[in-house]
């Protein structure tokens, strides 16, 4: 085992040396590593199955217009197993994948294995002069950095936002939300949003649809409430800091939301709350922005029209509005045989030009300030861009993201377990948070 360990060290050193040699030689051979018609290079990518096919069929041909000799193959893996599979691959002696598409909390977990390229150092020589790092919003860019090293670029940005159904708000006589809306105000409005719209004698529309079931994303709801009141899950020393009156109140608010949610909502998560909103059965939904098109625009999947659906940041706490970050970033494996081509792909897709194409053609959300400030080709994207820009700023100000730690997923799992107990009434908010804190301390020890 020891020999394996040092073997990996040697590999790393070898890779570094190779990278440095490449950097030294780079100016002379500008196109080195990007392939030629006779000898194309191959880049393999591991990505979420949810968008792997879309990228393979639409994004890769567009990339090949600029880099015709880089053959890109994208393998999709279902979300639940993507991190474990990426880790297994990237830590191997000769990994299959050059590019890994990592979800928001995964960069520290992948980076701690020492197998990712430091983009600002190792890839500096390959970076175009007009690739503007500072144009990225700080929050999405930070998703792929850890301990001051930038390992990736944001490729598919997503934020937890507040969706609302204007028709149901009007019927209930409740003013439409604004970014100023606070949690206290929202909770006061919620009972009015449970209404009988068809005159059947009992409620047929409810106030809220969001994550309540046992799921790792469920805690992000109360975490956002905590963040918008200035609280954090972990303190600077990575110790749990959420067993506070603010933390308990945040979880209690999340629990109280169930009262204004449709029957059975305690077992609802991503898919169920989404369906309820798309059927016009709930007035508000705290949900990832990426679902907007399928919720407001696409007639095959939703009963709602674009003008019926509003979108904005989540309600505000004492420190301002809430949001929660969910960015897919692209990172490069250090042992990649074609790191330059791999980086070329990431660079193109996250460049001003590539991101604009990506957003306009595939409807993927951008991370750059310039893209968000420009007018999108589709009208439905206009309110979404406004909400996104606000959400990025809110997330940056309140550090609204999952813990940045190599054991981030274990922390999240502990939170999910205890949140589920509290929501199902098996524990009080306080007891659940205490149990979660004890477990997280053990995990991070």
């Amino acid at each position: 085992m020891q020999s394996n360990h040092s073997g990996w060290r040697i590999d790393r050193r070898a890779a570094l040396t190779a990278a440095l040699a490449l950097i030294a030689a780079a100016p002379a051979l500008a196109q080195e590593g990007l392939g030629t018609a006779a000898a194309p290079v191959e880049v393999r990518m591991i990505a979420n199955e949810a968008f792997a096919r879309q990228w393979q069929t639409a994004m890769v041909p567009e990339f090949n217009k600029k880099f015709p000799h880089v053959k890109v193959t994208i393998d999709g893996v279902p979300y639940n197993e993507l991190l474990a599979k990426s880790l297994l691959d990237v830590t191997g002696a000769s990994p299959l994948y050059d590019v890994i598409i990592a979800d928001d909390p995964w960069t520290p977990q992948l980076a701690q294995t020492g197998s990712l390229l430091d983009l600002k150092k190792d890839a500096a020589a390959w970076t175009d002069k007009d690739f503007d790092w500072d144009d990225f919003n700080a929050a999405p860019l930070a998703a792929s950095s850890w301990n001051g090293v930038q390992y990736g670029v944001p490729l598919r940005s997503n934020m937890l936002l507040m969706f609302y159904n204007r028709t149901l708000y009007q019927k209930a006589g409740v003013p439409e939300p604004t970014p100023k809306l606070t949690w206290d105000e929202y909770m006061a409005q919620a009972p009015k949003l449970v209404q009988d719209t068809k005159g059947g004698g009992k409620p047929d529309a409810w106030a809220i649809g969001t994550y309540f079931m046992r799921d790792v994303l469920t805690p992000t709801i109360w975490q956002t409430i905590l963040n918008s009141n200035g609280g954090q899950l972990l303190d600077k020393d990575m110790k749990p800091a959420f067993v506070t009156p603010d933390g308990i109140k945040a979880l209690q608010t999340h629990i109280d939301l169930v009262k204004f949610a449709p029957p059975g909502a305690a077992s609802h998560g991503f898919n169920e709350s989404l369906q309820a909103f798309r059927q016009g059965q709930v007035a508000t939904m705290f949900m990832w922005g990426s679902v907007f098109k399928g919720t407001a625009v696409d007639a095959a999947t939703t009963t709602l029209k674009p003008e019926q659906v509003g979108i904005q940041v989540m309600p505000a706490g004492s420190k301002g509005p809430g949001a929660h970050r969910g960015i897919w970033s692209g990172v490069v494996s250090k042992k990649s045989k074609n790191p330059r081509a791999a980086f070329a792909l990431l660079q193109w897709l996250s460049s001003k030009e590539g991101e604009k194409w990506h957003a306009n053609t595939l409807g993927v959300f951008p991370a750059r300030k310039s893209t968000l400030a420009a007018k999108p080709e589709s009208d439905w994207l206009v309110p979404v861009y406004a909400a996104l820009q606000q959400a990025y700023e809110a997330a940056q100000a309140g550090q609204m993201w999952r813990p940045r730690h190599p054991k981030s997923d274990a922390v999240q799992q502990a939170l999910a377990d205890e949140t589920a107990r509290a929501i199902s009434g098996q524990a009080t908010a306080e007891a659940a948070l205490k149990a979660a804190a004890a477990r997280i301390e053990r995990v991070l020890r």
Partner: protein
Amino acid sequence: MSTQARSDERPTLGHRLRIAGGLFACAVFLFPVAWMVVTSFKMPRDIFTTPPKLFFTPTVDTYIQYFGHAEVMKRMANTVIVAFGSGLVSIVAGAMAGYALARLPIRGAPTIGVIILLSRGVPPIALAVPMFLVARKLGLTDQHITLILAYCTFLIPYVMWLMRGFFLSLPPELEESALLDGCSRFGAFFRIILPISMPGLVSTLIFCVILAWEELLFALVLTNRNATTIPVAIAGIAGDTVNGANWGALTAVGTLTVAPVVVFALAVQKWLIKGIADGAIKG
């Protein structure tokens, strides 16, 4: 003894009730399947309605979209190769081991048999990662043979144990007379015992093919592209974290995956009866 003659003997009320009971049980168990099939013809917006929609404009879009998809068809082919490959290997190796346990007194064999059975006690999740590490070391990731071998590890113990049960219930005189007639052990096993055990063999094979057909965890870990199976595709559709799970697509692909296995089960049905008839003649 033909089956027809027997049913003529007693067309009693009890017999009719038994048929009705069987049909009722079948209907109850197939109801969720029917709901799946109905859902596969709905547009996504028609699936989660209150009250549930029984009348809707049917669409075959999802089928066209997925059936015409080369990747889905390739994965289906992979699934067939892997399921039948591992099913056949396991049924041969497992039936032989089961026979040894049931009929051949050898020192140590029962212990090995029990160890083989107990190997099923290891949670598969624990095995997936080391199996991947081994496969990678041997350069065997993403190949059909790897999945077939992996599936054999969990199918063989089942086959062995089930077939042992079937062999135990056979009259021992069968192979004794065969052996006295000068048959070798293998001859007796393959020519006398296996044909007469056809119902058990076919049922066990169906079971094996189904288990391998729907296996997800090993397929996820051990394959990337060339040997990926349908359950991986299904898991991908269900875990769509971008747009929400597309239940039209899920139920459509779900329906598509069920069909070949049902056809296979129907095709091998006659062997269930045939074995009995053969056995009756020879016994």
